[in-house]
């Protein structure tokens, strides 16, 4: 035991004081910096969402002016997309667990890792600074469509600059993970001995690295147009607004998979652990991640079916959109098959995984309704789209994030959370979520356009239901957060492997020491999900 003593104090005890955190090179500490930052922004974004729902409780002007409402939905989108969802799972759980799951002590470039967090914080500050000067935060929607974004007097340039910086942060994380996975896997761990969460991160990272530069340039073009008036997108200056939409979605559609793939990776971990059996169709799930990442590059046009694209282009983008659904369906089947003849424990993380499957299915199937030409013409830019992407982003990724937080909570903090309260929180969240967003699907089918400050009276009953749903959802969030904070302080100590998991993070102490492994990790010859 003599060579282990250095390795047994947890990474919390290896340095004290704020500087030991904000300038740390330890992937686990950086992960926690990210966790507290993204969680804060998530709560800010959620509060903005609640405000929007309150304004929409009755038609007419209630709480705020139209312009304020428009700024709020823009800020809600910018925060949730760029400051929460995109970094969420990779930067928090990827940073913390990728090195451990592949049996190494850190990511390939710890300094770049720290830099990426700092860029994130700087980008976030830029985004929030729009509140403080001039005409206030951008009122364009998170899509910054030209030429409105060129004409409006609000602080679009600053918001766009923030997104640009955040893009760099995301590229650095992706780059780091790709190199880490290629170079630092435990000797003896081949590609197909790697758990599925690292696989999902690997596919995600390629999208981050390859697609993000495009949005970077595009956003700079908006600034150039606003500040020096060169005509790129505004026809009044000789530009083309449709060009902007192409460039924007060439990034932002693949970005949907930056948000979804890591969540699928999480679910692929939760289901085997709580079913106590090996994953069904390991290779099918791994390959389908790569297939999604690849096909996902070629479907951006489905955001533009009504923009006046040529008829042929619309047909091609529609077919491809349907095809990208197939690998997602394959994953769902394999997850469900993993339940077959398992020995299933319905612990809180498992509830999130099952809710993920249900909600992600609704998100995916409503995506097909949007991907079909005839129906999309009717539904484009309505609440149906808003409902659809919240099912994917929140019902999918958001739920996976919270599930992962419960799953790895004992490992991260060395404490158990309170199971009963966690389940109560889940119940509220699940109920509120579905009331809120399913109602939006119906509103959309009935022809309620999105980004509407006010609406025709016939839509009111459904808006009331949605708003009530938002209250239930928010209650759930509060219960969940309070429970986790209390458990971190007062929860009982967690063992190394509370759930009976088999991936490598369950072989290290809870919380892990600075170097992660206190003894040589044991790799099963039969692959990452060997439950025997």
């Amino acid at each position, binding site marked *: 035991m003599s060579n282990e003593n250095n390795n047994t104090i947890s990474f919390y005890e290896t340095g004290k004081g704020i500087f030991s955190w904000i300038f740390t090179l330890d992937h686990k500490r950086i992960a926690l910096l990210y966790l507290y930052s993204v969680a804060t922004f998530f709560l800010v974004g959620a509060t903005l969402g609640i405000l929007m729902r309150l304004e929409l409780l009755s038609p007419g002007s209630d709480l705020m002016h*139209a312009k304020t409402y*428009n700024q709020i939905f823009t800020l809600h989108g910018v925060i949730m997309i760029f400051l929460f969802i995109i970094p969420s799972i990779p930067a928090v759980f990827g940073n913390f667990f990728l090195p451990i799951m592949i049996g190494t002590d850190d990511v390939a470039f710890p300094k770049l890792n720290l830099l990426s967090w700092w860029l994130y914080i700087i980008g976030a500050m830029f985004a929030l600074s729009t509140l403080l000067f001039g005409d206030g935060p951008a009122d364009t929607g998170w899509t910054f*469509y030209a*030429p*409105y974004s060129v*004409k409006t*007097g609000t602080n679009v340039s600053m918001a766009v600059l923030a997104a640009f910086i955040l893009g760099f942060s995301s590229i650095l994380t992706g780059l780091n993970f790709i190199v880490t996975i290629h170079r630092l896997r435990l000797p003896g761990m081949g590609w197909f001995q790697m758990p599925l969460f690292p696989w999902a991160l690997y596919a995600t990272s390629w999208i981050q690295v390859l697609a993000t530069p495009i949005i970077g340039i595009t956003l700079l073009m908006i600034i150039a147009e606003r500040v020096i008036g060169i005509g790129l997108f505004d*026809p009044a200056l000789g530009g*083309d*607004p449709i060009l902007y939409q192409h460039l924007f979605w060439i990034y932002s559609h693949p970005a949907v998979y930056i948000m979804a793939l890591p969540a699928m990776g999480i679910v692929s971990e939760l289901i085997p652990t709580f079913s*106590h*059996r090996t994953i*069904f*169709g390991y*290779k*099918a799930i791994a390959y389908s991640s790569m297939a999604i990442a690849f096909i996902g590059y070629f479907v951006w046009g489905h955001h533009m079916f*009504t923009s*006046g694209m040529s008829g042929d282009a619309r*047909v091609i983008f*529609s*077919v491809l959109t*349907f*095809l990208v*659904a*197939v690998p997602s369906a*394959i994953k*769902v*089947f*394999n997850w*469900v*098959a993993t*339940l*077959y003849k398992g*020995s*299933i*424990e*319905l612990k809180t993380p498992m509830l999130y995984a*099952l809710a993920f*499957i*249900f909600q992600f299915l609704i998100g995916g*199937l409503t995506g*097909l*309704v949007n991907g*079909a*030409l*005839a*129906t999309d*013409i*009717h539904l*484009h*830019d309505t609440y149906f789209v808003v409902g659809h992407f919240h099912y994917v982003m929140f019902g999918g990724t958001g739920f996976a994030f919270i599930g992962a937080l419960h799953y790895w909570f004992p490992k991260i903090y060395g404490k158990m959370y309170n199971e009963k309260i966690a389940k109560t929180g889940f119940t509220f969240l699940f109920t509120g979520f579905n009331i809120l967003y399913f109602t939006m699907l119906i509103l959309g*089918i009935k*022809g309620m*356009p*999105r*980004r*509407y*400050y006010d*609406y*025709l009276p016939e839509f009111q009953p459904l808006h009331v239901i949605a708003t009530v749903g938002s209250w239930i959802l928010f209650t759930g969030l509060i219960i969940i957060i309070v429970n986790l904070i209390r458990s971190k302080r007062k929860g009982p100590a967690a063992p190394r492997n509370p759930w009976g998991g088999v991936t490598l993070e369950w072989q290290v102490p809870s919380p892990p020491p600075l170097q992660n492994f206190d003894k040589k990790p044991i790799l099963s010859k039969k692959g990452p999900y060997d439950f025997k």
Partner: protein
Amino acid sequence: MFSNSSNFVQGVDLSFAVILGISVIFLVGVTFVMIWFVIKYSRKRNPKASQIEGNNKLEIIWTVIPTILVLIMFYYGWMGYKPMREIPENGLKIKTYAQMWSWSFEYPNGKVSDTLVVPVDEPVILDLNSRDVIHSLYIPAFRIKEDVVPGKNNKMWFIGQETGNYNILCAEYCGDRHSYMLSKVVVVPEAEYTKWYNDTVSSDPPGLAVMKKNACLSCHSLDGSRIVGPSFAGLWNKEETILSAGKERKIIVDDEYIKKSLYNPGDDVVKGYPQGVMISYKNNITDKEITMIIEYLKTLKH
């Protein structure tokens, strides 16, 4: 669903039915199996899990079947959509203008209306033009929508098959009053339409008619209330504080100033109002029309 208010409704609603039908079966099926497994193979009932690693036959089945299903969905979506792009040669051609935040429809005889009045059972072709940013013309009851993109001449068409009033909404976010950018399609019998169409004498004073045609009134009120721009009530000869290139100064509203407001709205901006919202009307409004506007503004007292 399954009304017949436009020639597209049935095709679109059929694809809705097919896609939603398959989706619901799929969702219910998977969810049911999931819950069934969770109950049947719970830790209590099945303490020892079987380690099944996969099954290639199943993988192939659940790759091929969904592929076929999605292609079926795609096909119905395409078929429901195809007629929307097959714009007929002949039909009632209406030049449609979108601007922040109103619609105007210009008929072949020069008549301009803010509601879209059309004869029943006749193809109507809308030639879409935007005067500022992107808007989107959406008629939910007809299941159609097309973006109105500045600098681009998109087209859409439909046949109104049942008389009645239907909402027109703007579906592409376009600024403060986006949610008020509403209008109506009014589908009327042929005879009624002809009567409406030929009634071109307007009871409005000429200046007001010019302003209605150019949708000034979606931003400026006539009664003193604030919409987006300053009200026109009592504007003539008023003392106004304006910002010229950031500097504040006071002016009296006169011919020169109004002309400048219309042709170069960015030069002098009324204090307390946003810059860049009002576009330049250099190419849309003639000197003569400006004189008409001014004559009309003179008549508007507080």
